[in-house]
């Protein structure tokens, strides 16, 4: 009660600071002095402090299980472990928005602190644009999603946190993802500010690059955690499902990845300035678009937040205001500098541009696949669902040239290079890779020209990036690690996709199911009462080929608050392959439905993503 009030008024005072900040900052634009008025930084700090206070109040309300607070009542329960009480703070719509707001203000504060040598007006414009976003979030919170609504009479018990969200990985997945999404707000604001100040040049690119990399790192980790969660907790038996919400996080990621590359061209060669600006604006717009699609309930997905059209309308209007502001600024104020530098066909610049084109192609495929069903339903009243086949068909064929260009591009020189890069050794290596892939496929009894070339190209990229490690000519370690990580990622995903196998059957205790070269035996079932759920654990003995038998113990958790059954897969992880078993209830029967999967190289998907991120981290810490 006390903390709810404190949190609410702290939030309102945060909005108040925004309102007084705008005229002060605007006035400061006209003063000639070189540094930003020190009061501005103080006000931003106060704003940060009030929102932090508000956030902490909400956390405390969750810890104390203060059910007079509506958000706590709806998302918590006294029987929940402390850790999940805390993570419950951002596991719901209201709390997560408050966290977003906190991050928005934190980032602009850090931006103002760290950008000492940049032009004053540019900094102030960035602050102003960022404050527009911040005010939008404040209004959204206070008008439609107040986290501090008061309930009377005070309920004795809360409704509980959705059990599938009670997972340690998921407790940190949202905040990290938000850091990535919201990090891109700084890119957006500073791009608009750079346009206003005609500051779109090498210096700007150099300074902005670290923000791009930070957002990219958080977004990559966030997506990876989400995908690990889907694999281990949801028991979906895979790591990527082209679910709309997954796509929504992938779109800004692709855009950021393109931006990382194009901003280097701007920094080194003063080329691609307009393109970099467009990407910078697009990243945040895509993030907001994602927020709209997830929070408005317009999509049906696992990530269903509260389904409230009023919220949807608010975000929609806010999103389009942002789009219109950026269009207005871009078309009215942007004066492209004459690009004096000539761009040659065989140069690093061109190869990066090519990379960007591919990225944009992948991005548009995903965008269309995600948004088109909504448009079609409104226009033609027809329901369609776009699934993996659509994405696979449109993306995989283009992956082959993309991977081939990726072996060549990074080794090209800036400005101008020649054909010498493509020499007989590399062609030989490519042929060897394709042959190798043919042999691998042949051994398993699969064939097909397309798959052979796909695996061959992935292998080829893998060999090239490995080779690049041992060439001391260039010192760009971060790029080598990230590219190596990416090649490993592609290789693991492709092999995993092709060699995964799956068995689905209904089985009861004491039964044995035989398949091609092995068997599954259902030994026993154990029930036990846990703190806030009933646990049902099955024991399965799996005998394959002539290997030692493996025991897998998948679990069903039957929760009472709210009443939900979740299934926990049991997974035996090894370097080569994961064995994955999940069971489900069959209504009113002694039978359980089981799904047994062998997933080769799963662990390498996570490891390679970690490599990808480490490349980014090295770049970030090495930037001086």
């Amino acid at each position: 009660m006390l903390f709810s009030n404190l949190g609410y008024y702290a939030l309102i005072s945060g909005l108040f600071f925004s309102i007084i900040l705008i005229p002060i900052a605007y006035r400061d634009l006209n003063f000639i002095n070189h540094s930003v008025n020190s009061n501005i930084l103080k006000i931003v700090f106060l704003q940060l402090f009030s929102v932090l206070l508000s956030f902490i109040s909400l956390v405390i309300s969750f810890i104390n299980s203060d059910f007079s607070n509506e958000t706590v009542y709806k998302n918590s329960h006294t029987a929940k472990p402390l850790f999940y009480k805390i993570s419950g703070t951002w596991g719901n719509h209201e709390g997560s928005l408050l966290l977003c707001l906190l991050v928005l203000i934190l980032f602009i504060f850090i931006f103002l602190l760290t950008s000492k040598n940049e032009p004053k007006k540019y900094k102030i414009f960035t602050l102003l644009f960022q404050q527009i976003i911040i005010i939008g979030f404040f209004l959204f919170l206070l008008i439609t999603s107040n986290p501090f609504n008061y309930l009377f009479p005070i309920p004795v018990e809360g409704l509980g946190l959705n059990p599938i969200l009670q997972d340690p990985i998921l407790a940190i997945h949202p905040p990290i993802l938000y850091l990535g999404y919201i990090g891109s707000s700084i890119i957006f604001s500073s791009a608009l500010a750079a346009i206003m100040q005609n500051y779109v040049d090498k210096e700007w690119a150099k300074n902005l690059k670290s923000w791009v990399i930070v957002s990219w790192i958080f977004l990559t980790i966030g997506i990876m955690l989400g995908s690990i969660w889907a694999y281990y907790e949801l028991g979906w038996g895979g790591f990527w499902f082209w679910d709309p919400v997954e796509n929504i996080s992938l779109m800004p990621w692709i855009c950021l990845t393109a931006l990382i590359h194009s901003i280097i061209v701007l920094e080194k060669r003063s080329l691609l300035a307009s393109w970099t600006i467009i990407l910078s604006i697009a990243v945040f717009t895509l993030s907001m678009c994602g927020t709209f699609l997830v929070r408005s309930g317009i999509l049906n997905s696992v990530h269903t937040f509260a389904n409230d059209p009023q919220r949807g309308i608010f975000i929609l209007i806010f999103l389009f205001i942002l789009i219109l502001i950026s269009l207005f600024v871009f078309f009215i104020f942007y004066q492209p500098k004459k690009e004096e530098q000539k761009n040659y066909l065989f140069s690093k610049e061109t190869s990066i541009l090519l990379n960007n084109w591919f990225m944009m192609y992948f991005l548009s495929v995903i965008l269309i696949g995600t948004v088109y069903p909504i448009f079609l339903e409104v226009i033609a009243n027809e329901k369609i669902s776009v699934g993996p086949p659509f994405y696979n068909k449109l993306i995989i064929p283009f992956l082959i040239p993309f991977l081939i260009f990726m072996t060549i591009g990074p080794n090209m020189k800036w400005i101008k290079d020649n054909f010498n890069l493509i020499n007989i050794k590399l062609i030989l290596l490519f042929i060897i890779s394709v042959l190798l892939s043919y042999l691998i496929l042949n051994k398993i009894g699969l064939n097909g020209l397309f798959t052979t070339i796909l695996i061959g190209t992935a292998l080829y990229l893998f060999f090239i990036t490995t080779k690049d490690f041992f060439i001391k000519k260039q010192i760009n370690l971060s790029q080598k690690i990230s590219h190596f990580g990416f090649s490993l990622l592609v290789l693991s995903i492709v092999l995993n996709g092709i060699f995964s196998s799956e068995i689905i059957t209904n089985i009861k205790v004491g039964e044995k199911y035989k398949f091609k070269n092995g068997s599954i035996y259902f030994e026993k079932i154990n029930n036990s009462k846990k703190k806030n759920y009933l646990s049902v654990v099955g024991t399965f003995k799996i005998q394959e080929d002539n290997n030692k038998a493996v025991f897998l113990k998948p679990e069903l958790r039957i929760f009472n608050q709210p009443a939900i059954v979740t299934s926990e897969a049991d997974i035996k992880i090894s370097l080569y392959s994961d064995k994955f078993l999940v069971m489900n209830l069959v209504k009113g029967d002694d039978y359980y439905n089981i799904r047994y999967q062998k997933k080769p190289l799963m662990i390498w998907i996570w490891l390679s993503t970690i490599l990808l991120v480490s490349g980014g981290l090295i770049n970030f810490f090495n930037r001086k």
Partner: protein
Amino acid sequence: MKKKFFLLVIIIFVIICFVILFKGLNKSTTYVPDGISGKKLISFDAKKLFNNDEINSDLFFVGNKFYLLNIWASWCGPCRAEHEILMQLSNNPSIKIIGLNYKDDLINAKKFINELGNPYSEILIDEDGTIAIALGAYGVPETLIINKNKIILKKFIGPLNSQSIKEINSLLK
């Protein structure tokens, strides 16, 4: 000039997107399985909970304008939660509520009714779950809204809530 034209085109495109998404927001995304709504209710035989008479469903769905068939069980937590809503609905004279007790212990089922009140004008029992399967139920609780011609108007999967009450009331008009 070219720039302004370009801006205009983009703005028009953006506005179209806005309108479409805005309209999309007001569409209901609740998923109703195909082939249930609009179909005629099957006829089945069932025993009554309180006096064990066997009766054919055709004799049941007679004389009222609307029927609500609720599949429930005493062992099902969400059924307990939705019971309050059914009690409220039972005050509405234009709808007759029929319960189908699914795979339950009859003593527990009677206890459940005695404890929480009886919103049903009649309770049928489905001891082995076959009727529920024939009705296309996925689990308990589930609720069918049926009109006087025995056409299924709507199916609610999971417990009823205040939102579903609104939907039911709009169906009854």
